[in-house]
């Protein structure tokens, strides 16, 4: 090559380099094939798809049910030893502090739910790109979003009391540390407002099973009223669910908790779990599509013949003998709620059952309602159990309504007894166990019935607290402190939130 060509080449390359410089450090996420918020919420389908993900954190709240039982007189933490599942051990032993991974995870998950709902409401009118996307059913879709936000805040307020409250948007890094705790009453007011808005637009029936219905919203609002002792409002609201006869009690109590019983005639609100998109991330074991709590409560080292239905687990969240003893003879709920492994083994010799006795806090009992069963998980087996949480069953609605009617300023005990006895007749399959009490005896009978009916479903601790029975029933419970769980340590240190009394 001649010198001239080289020189020309050099000069040309220098100039072309300089010319392209300006754009060289520009960046568009599309170069990395990433969708940005300006690309999204551009169609009805985008809105509907994003609303699906507002449901997702419901699944991450699976430990809320476990805590609601372990903290109560219904269950002990169990596990491998005193240092296994320490966060649950401490809750069981009433030595829990602000450093508790289970409570922190619940806090984070509920707030992710709030932020996801807020993002939807933030862009309800116009999307991030400034366009309006209207479609038939948009309001009904937002009914689901309002319900979910209410559910997340209700979870937060019942666990932690006063909590940061925001509804205008998804928060970003610049809002870190900017919020204080809002009074419990304000949080409840927002929950009521969201549920009221949801009820106004939601349909009574949804084509997709597990989608929020108007009844689910009414039942939850009834519960929210009950937690505030607003008995009149609760009674009226819960009757809205009962009067249309849209639900019925399933006569075989056990069938409710089988895979085939999911979203059945008694189901008002269920958190849906599945293994249709199996998860294998131990780094976020709580945050898959499956119900992690099911694996937790299984029997250790369980083996047996092929037709023995149960799969092995980790002996956590074990029912107490106290719970077992609470059931009267003939109550079909006892053996559905509690699996007495030795009795089961003796009753079914053909299964050739072998298992390892729970190594810590053994009660010999296991939670049958959510026991891991063969064939109901896949992929990373521990993380993908499909068992839905029956969060609000019709029997719960009946018992809540019964309670509200006894405590209402214009009580209707006949109605209350009727609701209560519907639940008892199903349990005993006869009329002989009807309750005829009235006054405070009736009220206490209803509370006792809640325990028997809903044991191991996550309400026990919160029922004891809201009805003032916790100190009497729970060993280690300190009045004035343990009604609420501690605010996670990070929120105290990073966000400067105040701590709950006593922690």
């Amino acid at each position, binding site marked *: 090559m001649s010198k001239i060509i080289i020189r020309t080449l050099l000069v040309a390359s220098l100039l072309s380099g300089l010319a392209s410089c300006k754009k060289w450090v520009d960046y568009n996420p599309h170069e990395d094939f990433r969708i940005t918020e300006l690309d999204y919420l551009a169609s009805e389908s985008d809105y509907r798809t994003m609303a699906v993900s507002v449901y997702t954190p419901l699944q991450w709240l699976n430990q809320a049910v476990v805590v609601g039982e372990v903290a109560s007189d219904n269950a002990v933490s169990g596990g491998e030893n005193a240092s296994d599942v320490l966060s649950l051990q401490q809750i069981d032993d009433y030595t829990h502090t602000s450093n508790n991974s289970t409570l922190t995870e619940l806090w984070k998950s509920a707030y992710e739910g709030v932020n996801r709902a807020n*993002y939807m409401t933030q862009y309800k009118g116009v999307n991030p790109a400034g366009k309006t996307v209207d479609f038939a059913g948009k309001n009904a879709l937002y009914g689901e979003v309002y319900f979910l936000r209410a559910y997340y805040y209700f979870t937060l307020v019942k666990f932690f009391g006063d909590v940061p409250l925001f509804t205008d948007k998804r928060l970003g890094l610049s809002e870190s540390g900017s919020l204080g705790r809002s009074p419990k009453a304000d949080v409840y007011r927002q929950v009521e407002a969201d549920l009221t808005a949801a009820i106004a637009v939601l349909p009574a029936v949804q084509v997709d099973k597990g989608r929020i219905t108007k009844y689910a919203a009414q039942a939850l609002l009834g519960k929210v009223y009950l937690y505030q002792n607003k008995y009149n409002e609760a009674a009226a609201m819960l009757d809205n669910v009962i009067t249309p006869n849209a639900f019925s009690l399933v006569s075989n109590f056990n069938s409710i908790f089988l895979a085939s019983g999911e979203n059945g005639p008694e189901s008002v609100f269920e958190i849906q779990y599945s293994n249709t998109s199996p998860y294998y991330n131990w780094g976020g074991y709580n945050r898959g599509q499956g119900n992690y709590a099911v694996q937790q409560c299984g029997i250790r080292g369980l083996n047996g013949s092929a037709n023995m239905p149960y799969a092995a687990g980790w002996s956590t969240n074990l029912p107490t003998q106290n719970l077992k003893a609470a059931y009267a003879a003939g109550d079909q709920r006892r053996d559905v709620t509690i699996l007495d492994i030795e009795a089961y083994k003796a009753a079914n010799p053909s299964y050739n059952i072998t298992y390892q006795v729970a190594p810590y806090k053994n009660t010999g009992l296991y939670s049958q309602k959510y026991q891991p069963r063969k064939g109901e998980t896949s992929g990373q087996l521990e993380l993908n159990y499909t068992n839905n949480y029956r969060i609000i069953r019709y029997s719960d609605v009946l018992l809540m309504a019964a309670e509200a009617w006894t405590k209402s300023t214009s009580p209707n005990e006949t109605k209350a007894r009727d609701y209560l006895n519907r639940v008892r007749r199903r349990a005993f399959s006869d009329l002989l166990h009807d309750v005829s009490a009235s006054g405070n005896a009736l009220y206490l009978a209803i509370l006792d019935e809640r325990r028997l009916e809903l044991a191991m479903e996550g309400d026990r601790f919160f029922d004891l607290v809201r009805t003032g029975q916790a100190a009497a029933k729970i060993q280690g419970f300190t009045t004035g402190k343990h009604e609420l769980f501690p605010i996670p340590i990070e929120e105290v240190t990073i966000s400067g939130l105040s701590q709950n009394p006593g922690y």
Partner: protein
Amino acid sequence: MDGKGIQENSFNSILGSALNFDPTVSKYNTVPNTAGTFGYSNLLLSEIFNPLTKLENTYNKNVGYKLYGKGELQYDVLKNLKVSTRFGYTKYDGNAKSFTPLVFYGPLNVENSMNADGSTVAGKHNSVAHEKASNLNWTWESFANYNFKIKQDHSFETVLGYSMSKVSGNTAGATRQDVPFNSWEFADFTAATGNNNATNSNALSGYYYQYFRRNLSYFARINYDYQEKYLASFTARRDGSYAFGKNNKYANFFSGSLGWVVSKENFWHSDFIDYLKIRGSYGSIGNENVDPLYVSIITGGPSYGPTANSNGYTFGDVFYPGATVGSAANDALRWEKQMQSNIGFDMTFFKRRFSITADYFRKTVDGLLFTPSASLYLGTVPIPTANIGSTKSSGIDMMLSYNQNIGRSLKLNTSITFTTVKNEVTATNTDGTAKILGGYYFNGQSQSVTVFEKGQTPGYFYGFQTEGLFQNFADVAAHATQTGAQPGDIRFVDQNKDNVINDLDKVKIGDPFPDFTMGWNLNLEYKNIDFSAFTYASIGNDVYRAYERNANYTNKDRMILARWTGDGTTNNAKTPRYSFTDANSNIRVSDRYVEDGSFAKVKNLQLGYTLPTKWTGKAFSKLRVYVQVKNAFTITKYTGFDPEIAGGILDTGVDRGAYPQARTFAFGLDIKL
């Protein structure tokens, strides 16, 4: 390049298992008709395994190829003006494979994938994973040099130019289950037989991702020199990065230096000092090691990112993919600027036998780039990187060396270095109240031990201060309310005197940075024999012992033998009573785990012998044999493996079971032809 790796630095690594595994287990498995070469525990049933079993079942292999090259064109435009363009590149291709076999950990272990009889646990699979990575990095610089002199003695060198660079790569991987014979020999995608089906969608999977970075710089430099007496230089850069938002893409960086060789002055007449230079410099550089931040929407199903920010839901039995915000923007993000200035001198004296170099330096980092901890109520979208604050380090750096020939055959050359540094966070958020937490570890609970906070050492240890042990119930009753406390438990200090021990009582309990460091280098040559040694010492650095898993049946430090066993037995807060339930949470972050990590290490010892030429003949011009010991020994009071624990800004000094530096014995030959 070829390699194999094992896990380290966490309780569930192989090293973590070695530290924490049940010490009563025999090395080999002696139970007849049971799978597994090594012993198992019937007490530890999850998480921590016989490290030998883990090691035996760790299979991975990495092979990499690196190719680099450079091309340059130069054009002498005028006598003193030169234009150059230079292109350099590095190409790297990696190929990795790992095999996760079926393993039997013991009959009661809940994490078995193999039964005692060698059969597969129902639903479990072995798997092989392949990953291929391909990277290309290049830099293209173009610049002009112009050198000139003014009046003979004033020399100038100037440079003006720009450079563009790009880092890019992509990675593809595939995983397949059911490797034949559960064996590494057949661990390959081609031999594995897994196929996805209705109950197992993990049998066969693949992934691909790509990435790039782009940078641009303009630069100019002037060097000035007057008779080699006065020296000055000035550099200016304008750097641009694709990673920052529109308004913050570019940042300017200046540096300059001045020097005066005093000993070259005509007035200088000293027989004692041979050379003296006084100098000062200032320099700034930038850091842009972040990815662009923007609000992305992730669609589909489960997420396997760091925050597992999953998507989608099931209605009935049908999975509905979802969409949610997957990352956050930070429009304020900008270049991190590191500025260093120092002033000092170089001096040789006493017939050039001694030399001293001394500097006072000051380094500030402005807009430190870091992913902060943030309020949990922001939800689970990953927290974006931010400019979290500024830090300042200052200190002195000195080196004194001495060399002399003693007699005709002994040569001595030795030097001592001495460095002190003081580190401080000078700014965080606008009101200076931010606390950023880090140093996370797990000892039964997730714990955070380090904090980044204004006015403190970056990443100082933050926790409870202890004051001995409760000897009896009267002690417990006399102390501030401490939930769960029993005699024998640690008494924590009620810092704020509110009569209750809680998070508000946490204080600084340690500092991972040394007060000073020293080095000593010694070289001796005697005739054909040579000897060299390098010793390094770090004084005053604290280490936080974070490798103990602390489960009921895990191994314990021998310190536990001195534990509290009754009133008056011991008042040492490092040795509380042992209780399985630990209602007092003796395992919380406290100075119980802080140790003085000061150390002196003989990093290198070498003894050599050069063969006389009469033996080697003419074949070699030099033939030397030597023996060498690297990391010969360490003097330290630290009870863990190695007190020298490096880490990022919030992980310095936190020992989660870091792999200690190996002691290496080497024998070598130096051959010169």
